[in-house]
């Protein structure tokens, strides 16, 4: 033994059952007597509604219940979804009714729920429910909606502004008056969707005799679901167990609390039988939170040397119909500004605006990709204006190594000063340039242009605040067979947390990884937890697993010293046993030590032991938020005849501090980059003027496919974070955050001969041809 686990490309413990088809996702669970739910959802974006007849639906053979707002139980604390993240700064908070009462605010909002003996019949019954709609004004365009006289998204509001927030530091006005030149930029960032391959799903199983509700949910945050359902239904948390079994991807939208979770809980209680709802893909397009539409208007002040001194501006953020995830998305849009760049004066305001579209909430990176995109577009715009190479421009403005710990001036959500703990931003830039052979590519590009081929190269640098607390605990217990059970409040949707936890424990206890079983995503197995959001799990569980197993190790050594009658410092833990260093034949196994602390041993616990079992729990977290960072380069070729874009190559240098498992980190980054490429080139959620979603299938809504994706070359630097004892930083979203910027900068670079400015993404082939000077084309 003694094999290094931390930092090794350890194969995942999760894979075995998944590659055999033995996974258990919510929809795979079948319980005796189970019924199936389906929803009747609004077909209009904004309307007064009246349900005129449910009798035909109710009378259909196989239908057990039809629930509407009026027939929801009166025992609920509220028939409106409770706010998940209330905040005083929210001026007007609107959450949906669990089932719409009088007004619907987006296509897809739930109006009625049918429970039947099969999903087919439940859907048949939904078609029989009669609803009268009276159309109301529709707010679709966020800029129009933000105007005081704009169409109202909710008829009871005076305007559509949910909240106004800002980030502000330095002396912006003075900096503008002292700068050499200024530029104005306006661009739109587009919403996309979640599109985890597994849609959402909820299965409720109420046990009347026990007074217990088990809720299986395809969620990222089982504890949040427990908390919210318990509050909504006014029943103690102790009576609810939420289990997130295998979850087929999350990416953010599964981190919220949804009406369906409460409704399934209600239905199983009322009907006293298990009830399952599996979201179908069309519902996913109209009922699962989406990404973010944002309009950015910025003004930048800079010196002739390229040094950017000030930024001011405004963001109009489309919240969609409801604010069911608080202001997290808005806040994470502003907070990361100005990213890795040293810009001392900044003032950006943001309005969160309701529209009659699907609600938005964080998706992979939350607002961070938007902030990173804004900064990288600013850098390229100024570079072009000053005829400075974009790479040099970045070098000029990046935070330098001697600046760490660096405080840009911005604040965390809790009001504390943002601190960049460590990194090597300029080193990463140099490294990624080298990987991509940047200088040679510029030569290639010149020659290609002469031959009518349009090559482009784009850069992006970013930071990411990761590892947010307060904790994600881990309990480590050695059982009487010498196997280890680790339980945690973390929940996973494919990231490989179980493997990482097992690696950390295996290293500290020096045991084989296959002797460790990790239990997670089950509120019945661990008391507190948060869930997989914001690139935080690796850091928190890594620290906690390490701390808990080192406590177990201490306990083992202490007990062994009593049992072997040796001084503790003459002992060591290796290969599943505590051994006498000088004579490895004298040992006592972890299994025997565990037995000594188990009920199998009659009488008292040994002296100095006040807790049962060879086990320990830890809730260790980072002292402050460690910042991951990276530099990316994309290379593209644009076909100016079709507008098609071929991605030639993609390069990533990433720093997430000390790496626990490079294979897993690379997987997160590559997957994240492709997600960002999807945003940049493909994914477009289109609504028509009446608020009808036009892209609700995978023929119209384009996700990135293997055939168009480039080889993504990933390299790492490891600057350990001083914010925690293991030097960890998070890695879940660092692929996506810079990718949109790198891609758009590359495409724009390819179109330099046409002096194109890309003002929106996704960049469609059609948009490319609009950007390309048509007279020039006609001439060739």
């Amino acid at each position: 033994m003694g094999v290094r686990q931390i930092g090794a490309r350890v194969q995942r413990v999760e894979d075995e059952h998944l590659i055999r088809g033995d996974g258990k996702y919510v929809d795979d669970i079948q319980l005796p007597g189970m019924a199936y739910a389906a929803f009747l959802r609004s077909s209009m974006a904004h309307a007064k509604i009246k349900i005129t007849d449910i009798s035909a639906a109710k009378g259909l053979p196989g239908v057990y219940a039809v629930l509407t707002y009026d027939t929801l139980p009166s025992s609920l604390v509220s028939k409106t979804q409770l706010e998940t993240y209330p905040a005083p700064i929210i001026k007007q908070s609107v959450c949906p009714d669990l089932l719409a009462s009088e007004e619907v605010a987006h296509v897809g909002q739930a109006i009625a729920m049918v429970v039947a003996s099969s999903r087919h019949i439940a859907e048949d019954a939904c078609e029989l429910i009669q609803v009268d709609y009276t159309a109301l004004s529709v707010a679709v365009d966020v800029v129009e909606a933000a105007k005081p006289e704009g169409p109202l998204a909710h008829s009871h509001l005076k305007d559509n502004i949910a909240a106004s927030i800002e980030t502000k530091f330095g002396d912006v006005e003075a900096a503008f008056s002292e700068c050499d030149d200024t530029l104005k930029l306006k661009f739109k960032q587009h919403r996309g969707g979640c599109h985890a391959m597994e849609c959402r799903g909820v299965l409720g199983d109420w046990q009347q005799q026990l007074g217990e509700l088990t809720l299986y949910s395809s969620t990222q945050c089982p504890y949040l679901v427990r908390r919210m359902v318990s509050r909504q239904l006014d029943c103690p948390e102790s009576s609810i167990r939420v289990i997130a079994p295998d979850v087929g991807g999350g990416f953010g939208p599964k981190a919220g609390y949804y009406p369906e979770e409460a409704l399934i809980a209600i239905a199983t209680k009322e009907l006293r039988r298990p009830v399952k709802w599996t979201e179908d893909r069309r519902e996913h397009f109209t009922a699962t939170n989406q990404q973010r539409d944002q309009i950015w208007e910025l003004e930048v002040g800079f010196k002739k040397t390229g040094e950017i001194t000030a930024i001011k501006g405004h963001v109009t953020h489309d919240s969609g119909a409801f604010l069911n995830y608080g202001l997290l998305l808005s806040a994470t849009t502003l907070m990361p500004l100005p990213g890795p760049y040293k810009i001392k004066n900044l003032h950006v305001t943001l309005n969160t605006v309701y529209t009659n579209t699907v609600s938005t909430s964080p998706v992979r990176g939350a607002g961070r990709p938007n902030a990173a995109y804004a900064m990288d577009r600013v850098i390229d715009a100024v570079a072009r204006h000053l005829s400075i190479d974009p790479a040099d421009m970045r070098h000029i403005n990046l935070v330098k190594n001697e600046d760490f710990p660096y405080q840009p001036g911005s604040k965390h959500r809790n009001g504390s000063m943002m601190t960049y703990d460590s990194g090597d931003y300029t080193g990463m830039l140099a490294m990624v340039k080298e990987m991509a052979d940047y200088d040679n590519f510029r030569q290639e590009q010149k020659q290609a242009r002469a031959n009518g081929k349009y090559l482009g190269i784009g850069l992006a640098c970013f930071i990411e605040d990761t590892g947010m607390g307060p904790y994600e605990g881990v309990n480590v217990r050695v059982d009487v067979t010498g196997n280890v059970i680790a339980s945690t409040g973390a929940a996973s949707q494919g990231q490989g947390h179980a493997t990482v936890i097992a690696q950390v424990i295996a290293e500290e206890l020096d045991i084989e990884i296959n002797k460790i079983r990790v239990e997670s995503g089950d509120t019945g197995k661990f008391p507190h937890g948060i869930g997989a959001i914001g690139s935080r799990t690796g850091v928190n569980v890594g620290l906690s697993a390490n701390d808990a197993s080192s406590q177990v190790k201490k306990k083992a050594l202490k007990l062994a010293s009593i049992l072997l009658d040796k001084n503790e410092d003459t002992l060591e833990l290796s290969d599943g046993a505590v051994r006498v260093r000088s004579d490895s034949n004298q040992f006592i196994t972890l299994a025997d030590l565990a037995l000594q602390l188990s009920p199998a041993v009659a009488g008292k616990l040994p002296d100095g032991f006040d807790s049962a079992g060879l086990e320990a729990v830890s809730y260790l977290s980072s002292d402050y938020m460690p910042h991951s960072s990276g530099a990316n380069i994309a290379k593209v070729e644009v076909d100016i005849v079709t507008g098609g874009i071929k991605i030639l190559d993609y390069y990533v240098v990433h720093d997430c501090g000390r790496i626990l498992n490079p294979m897993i980190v690379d997987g997160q980054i590559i997957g994240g980059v492709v997600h960002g490429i999807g945003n940049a080139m493909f994914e477009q959620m289109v609504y028509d003027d009446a608020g009808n979603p036009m892209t609700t299938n995978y023929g119209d809504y384009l996700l990135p496919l293997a055939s168009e994706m480039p080889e993504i070359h990933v390299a790492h630097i490891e600057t350990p974070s001083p914010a925690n004892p293991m030097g960890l930083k998070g890695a879940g979203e660092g692929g996506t955050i810079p990718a949109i910027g790198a891609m758009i900068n590359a495409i724009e670079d390819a179109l330099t001969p046409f002096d194109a400015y890309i003002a929106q993404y996704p960049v469609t082939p059609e948009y490319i041809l609009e950007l390309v000077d048509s007279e020039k084309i006609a001439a060739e």
Partner: protein
Amino acid sequence: MKASAFTYYKPNSLEDALGLLQNEEDAKVLAGGQSLMPMLNMRFVQPETIIDVNGIDELARISVTDKLEIGALTRQKTLAKDPTIRQHLPIMQEALTWVGHFQTQSRGTIGGSLCHLDPAAELPMVALLYDAELQVASASGIRSIPMQEWALAYMMPSISHDELLTKIIIKPWQGSHGYGFQEFARRHGDFAIAAAGCLIKIDNNIIEDIAISIGGVEDVPRRFTECEDVLRAIKYDIDDIKMQVLKPLSKINYLDDSLVTGAYRRRLLRGLLIRAVEQAAGRS
């Protein structure tokens, strides 16, 4: 997303199928199912009856005389690999590289593509190039429809509810000629935003004969005769052709929707058309 209820029949002979078609009021024919099944699942169509023709073996044959007769139930995967097709209709195999994915080609049929008649479908474009003849049967007999008269309107072929498309008859071009097929879709396997197919015969650097079909640009795929007329009998000079195609391009009623504008389709078609002609000429 589950289909609404229907009655299912699986006739084993053409005769039985035609009998069912005659008697059932609201029936849909299920062949490969690669277009119908999604529409059923999404409840975009809710027929009372489904007539599954997959049991009628005689509809799945390819035979060759001076013409190729392709049974309507011939799967795309068969067409993609069949040596007879490779020999006589290589353009069909080239077009098939753009059609869906191998997992949909394994069930999708040529008859299904022709009857579904998506504006951007490739197989109808190939049939158009050759002025194929479509044979349609009903309980009262067989009739034959020239491919150019097949499409009546958006996704509406010239076939009535009691009829079944049975075979596609194609007469390959004789003598030395070239073929080209160009398409642009955002991703591999997607329906084309625009596509152009071309057959060309060049003799002494003169375009002796040319056939062009286009897809994705109008509400039905069609022969682009306006363009053929301009190019036929002129000297093959690609720079000249680039200019010549401009005029006929304005004869097209471009699809214009919330996802793709007509203006873009026009520009795209021009580029693809030129590339298809060039490709065909290069192979002639």
